[in-house]
């Protein structure tokens, strides 16, 4: 009787070749990337992926779920769009907006770091205000449309 042989499924050979080739370059550059504070760099590299996938993404998904639960489907977009745009600008420019590097920024560039929070708040106000205005206009149109005999 022959013993059953255990075979590891390899997958596409072309894919394997490409990946091995890629890992060779990763290793070459990676050794240099890790030549200083290797633990810090690994933490940043892996941490960035984990923080995004397990914190940021679930967080904004949960916020969106809460928004959908709390508003009628027709109105959801009027909150979602300004919230996304405002949140996005905060995410990209948070060091400036939150003043994390305010002292260095002021002494290096001679510019005032306090303007960013104000500007971001203004942009946020304009986004939400604009959205509210559109919503009001739409509601008024809908009211007129439904009861043209009122006037």
């Amino acid at each position, binding site marked *: 009787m022959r013993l059953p042989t255990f075979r*590891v*499924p*390899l*997958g*596409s*050979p072309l*894919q*394997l070749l*490409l*990946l091995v080739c*890629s*890992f060779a*370059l*990763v290793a*070459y*550059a*990676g050794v*240099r*990337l890790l*030549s*200083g*504070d290797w633990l*810090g*760099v690994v933490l*940043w*590299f*892996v941490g*960035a*992926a984990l923080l*995004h*996938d397990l914190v940021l*993404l679930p967080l904004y998904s949960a916020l969106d779920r809460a928004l*959908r639960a709390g508003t009628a*489907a027709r109105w959801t*977009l009027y909150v*979602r*769009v300004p919230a*996304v*745009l405002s949140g*996005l*600008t905060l995410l*990209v*420019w948070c*060091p*400036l*907006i939150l003043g*994390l*590097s305010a002292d*260095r*920024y002021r*002494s*290096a*560039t*001679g*510019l005032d770091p306090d*303007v*960013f929070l104000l*500007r*971001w708040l203004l*942009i946020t106000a304009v986004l939400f205000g604009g959205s509210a205005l559109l919503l009001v206009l739409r509601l008024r149109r809908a009211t007129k449309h439904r009861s043209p005999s009122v006037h």
Partner: protein
Amino acid sequence: MRDDPRLPTSSHFWRSPLRGTWFTAVLGLVLLGGISVLFVTGLVSYAAYNPDLSPVNDTTPDKGVLGFYLFDWPAGPSWLYRLSQGVHVTLGVVLVPVLLAKLWSVVPKLFTLPPARSVAHALERVSLLLLVGGALFQFVTGLLNIQLEYVFPGSFYPLHFYGAWVFIAAFVVHAALRAPTAVRAVRARRRDEAELEAPRPAPPTVSRRGALWLVGGGSLLLFVTTVGQSLGGPLRRTALLAPHGGADPGGGPNGFQINKTARYAGITAADTHPDAWRLVLTGPAGTVRLSRAELLRMPQHSSSLPIACVEGWSTADQWWRGVRLRDLAALAGYEGGPPDVLVESLQRHGAFRRAALRANQVSDPRSLLALYVNGEELSPDHGYPARIIVPAAPGVHNTKWVGRLTFGDL
């Protein structure tokens, strides 16, 4: 393991009706184009520092073959670095919503079980960690650096350079494996791969097209609040959130944007006082020491050149006036063709207190040791008593508070 819809490992956990091959493919193709431009402009910026000219220019001395493409950085057109680095930084900012949307669209695949169906599949998932980690690492280090928030573990230059190579290795494989599917999906709007689609989708609150418009709107908002810092002039005021947007730091001829102030660089009035300051020129003719008054008695030349920073911001052309670098080379003993030069600042610390310029940069008639800008003496923040200005060179190679020029082949 049972298929529990409460766990992200189950396809039933993911309910959004937006996910699907077409949606991911559109975002993926935008990133394919955008990241290719980011990578090329990044390599161009690296070459602009002339790292192979002298160790003082080289923040990555062990780069090995990764510097294979390096070339002598040209001294023109004068807007070259302004354009390439403006594109690099502005595009990087603008692609953030596209990257986030793309990652969101494929997140169910992160949790797919079994972890590996084959050796190739296992390796691909490792490669995807490098892809996602690499993309986020590059975007985050870039965004932090332009906001002067130096919290990353090491010097920005090697981290962003080697990080780019690690990322691009994973990116190229991913593009090679996925781009054909993406192109097919976008061309035919076909859904031959249902793996990204929710089997039990929630009722839609927005269409896929609508969601793409939102991503595009996010990019547009970031673009209009950023690009002004690279355009300068009145448009700078439109860059409401960019580090060098809004108002200029001051009025008058010296009012344009500053990279590092004199105070930040530790330059004192005593350092630059006419009695104390001398420019030290070294070359075959020996060492020459020149006061500012003596420099002003040499032939004065003008050139209109911008300041363009690695952080992506730049100024419009400023009108500089001073002594040509090639005239100073002649004074140091190079009457024929000018050689390379090592420029040293009065700064006692800082990564760029020394910079090497190549012969083609020294010999360009627009390259000056500037003493005046826009008709006025340089201000302390712009490099008084004398600064370098060279066409198309990165901002930090236009050394301020110059103390010493050593001419010779480096």
